[in-house]
């Protein structure tokens, strides 16, 4: 006869930690912060203080259920569903708190999420990722999950649920400039990556074939990597400006000392090292026997390289590309300081006005972009790794 497990063994350690952090956050930190305008210090509000009674009760019940499911070792799918539901409940509670605190028609007050909201969000997010890790979904399922999450978020934002929240207030003011900034940001990050792949891939192959080149090439790229981004942007302004002044047609093509050009060149330079290094490493780890076999079949050197070596090295090379893409999405932020545009414009404008919500308007999309890029490329790498076997 099977004895039921003692309760102690059924407690999930991660869940216990998350529940403790969540409960502590809810008890000690504000759920929302209300400011009469953008620069006065805010007043803190707890979750129960601001929500209408019925809603507050529902919210408490939802959080209690979440805590129970987190604490006890329930199945991964249930934990995932509850974690996602908790995120939805938190978001809706925040939206209704903002609605409740905003006087009708007032566009000056700012209602922002407080520490308790952010910590609870992190806890639910960790619970969800933990459940997803336990479920071991395939790459396509992970991409589908991401796409679904983004789609739901965009629909809710478009519906106007969060319009009274401070970040969305800043969005409303900057709605005209936002799509352009987003486009510039993505173009800069992807464009410099594409250019880097075109140069770094042959360079990596060359380093593999001619070991004499390695110390020089990798050493130079290493030095470039250590130059702070803002300094490199600054250094590039002078030569590009001089180039545009000397050859007006270069300037007409958009290559100037100020604007996207120095940012693109700097991002391109930063992108080289990870791709060259990973190409080299990937090629070195291609098994000798595979190469010998290909030669034995009468393949030319070119066919061996493109048909065998690069295919086998692809997952490692793509890992380098993934590093570069995530790094570029973050680093493009600094482009705003030299007229390159992008989401960094909001970040630096927000810092200048001490308007944290404006900073977040730039920062949150950057984080989402980087996270999505990482998930997408991870999935791609996994598909590639499975393909040859």
């Amino acid at each position, binding site marked *: 006869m099977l004895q039921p497990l003692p309760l102690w063994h059924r407690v999930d350690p991660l869940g216990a930690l998350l529940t403790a952090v969540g409960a502590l956050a809810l008890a000690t930190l504000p759920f929302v912060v209300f400011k009469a305008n953008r620069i006065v210090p805010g007043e803190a509000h707890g979750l129960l203080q601001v929500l209408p009674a019925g809603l507050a009760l529902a919210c408490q019940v939802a959080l209690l259920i979440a805590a129970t499911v987190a604490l006890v070792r329930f199945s991964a799918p249930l934990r995932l569903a509850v974690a996602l539901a908790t995120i939805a409940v938190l978001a809706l509670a925040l939206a209704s708190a903002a609605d409740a605190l905003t006087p009708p028609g007032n566009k000056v007050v700012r209602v922002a999420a407080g520490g308790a909201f952010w910590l609870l969000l992190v806890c639910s997010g960790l619970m969800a990722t933990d459940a997803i890790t336990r479920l071991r979904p395939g790459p396509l399922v992970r991409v589908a999950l991401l796409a679904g999450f983004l789609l739901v978020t965009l629909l809710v934002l478009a519906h106007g649920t969060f319009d009274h929240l401070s970040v969305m*207030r800043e969005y409303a003011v900057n709605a005209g400039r936002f799509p352009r900034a987003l486009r510039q940001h993505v173009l800069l990050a992807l464009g410099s990556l594409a250019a880097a792949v075109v140069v770094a891939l042959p360079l990596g192959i060359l380093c593999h074939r001619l070991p004499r080149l390695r110390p020089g090439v990798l050493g130079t790229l290493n030095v470039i990597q250590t130059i702070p981004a803002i300094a490199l942007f600054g250094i590039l302004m002078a030569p590009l400006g001089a180039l545009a002044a000397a050859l007006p047609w270069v300037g007409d093509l958009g290559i100037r000392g100020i604007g996207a050009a120095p940012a693109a060149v700097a991002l391109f330079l930063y992108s080289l090292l990870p791709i060259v290094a990973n190409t080299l490493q990937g090629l070195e780890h291609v098994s000798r026997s595979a190469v010998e076999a290909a030669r034995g079949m009468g393949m030319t050197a070119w066919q061996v390289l493109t048909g065998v070596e690069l295919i086998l090295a692809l997952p490692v090379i793509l890992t380098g590309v993934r590093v570069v893409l995530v790094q570029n999405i973050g680093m493009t932020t600094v482009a705003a300081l030299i007229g390159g545009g992008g989401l960094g414009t909001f970040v630096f404008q927000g810092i200048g006005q001490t308007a944290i919500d404006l900073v977040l308007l730039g920062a949150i999309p950057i984080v989402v972009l980087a996270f999505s890029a990482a998930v997408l490329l991870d999935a791609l790498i996994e598909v590639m790794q499975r393909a040859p076997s």
Partner: protein
Amino acid sequence: MQRHSAYRQPTRAAALLCALLLLAAVARAGSTPLIVSSKLDSEATMLSQMVRLVLNGAGITTIDRTRIGATPVVRKALLTGEIDLYVEYSGNAEFFFNDSADPAWKDLRQGYALGARLDYAANHIVWLTPAPVSNSWALAVRRDLAERAQLRTMSDFARWVRGGGAVVLACSAEFANAGTLRALEQTYHFTLSSAQLIVLAGGETAATIGAAAAGTNGTNTAMVYGTDGGITAANLVMLADDLHEQPIYAPVPLIREAALRSNPQIAQLVRPLMESLDLATLRALNARVQIDGEADEAVAADYLRAHGFLK
């Protein structure tokens, strides 16, 4: 055959490049729009947008390249001809020409004249009409304190501090360390101990004003800019620089001579606009951007329509 096609490939690329160059040359030969730029901060952007919208209204085509960077970036862009116009502050010429000894910078008219002369001689940059205001650093105190201790000017403030007034000043590291505070102390004869200073690392005026408004750690005095939108909203009173210690930072649109020559009416279009801006107006407009969070361009357009500069 192989060699032949390999030869043909580059020719095609060259032809494409030539076509591109031709296109670029044609684009250049057409009417060149005026490139209007600005620094990153909200006031400079709002003023540059005002100028741009007024020129647009008069039928001059402009390109909006506002908010491109900090002062050195925008300045360099103007000098290299990458932009045509932006709004600068007259007192900054003191640093552009490394000439801080000249007392002219402490007077609006003289400082403007000196800066305009130096910039034209060195760079063929024309200074258009300045707004008759100064955005220089100043101190502001809480209104309750100003009324209780009767503080209106820096001289009043110095007298109060010398008499043992319990001052706590919130300011930026730059203000405290780069000599601005020391210059004020020397001119007005007062000294603040380090216990009376709260030096904020970032040191944006929104933070110093916020500290004084909330009385954080006893803060009752804040470093501000003359045209700060937060001064009135946070119920502070700015102390007048009655001995004219600080250089004047009057907003001035700067334009490259070549760009002005192809559209000479720009000078006449900008003059009434800049002359219409006084301290109270600028503070109120800045408050709408900095405190209410409205878009700088929208506030600029509103002002222009309300005052008949734009139909």
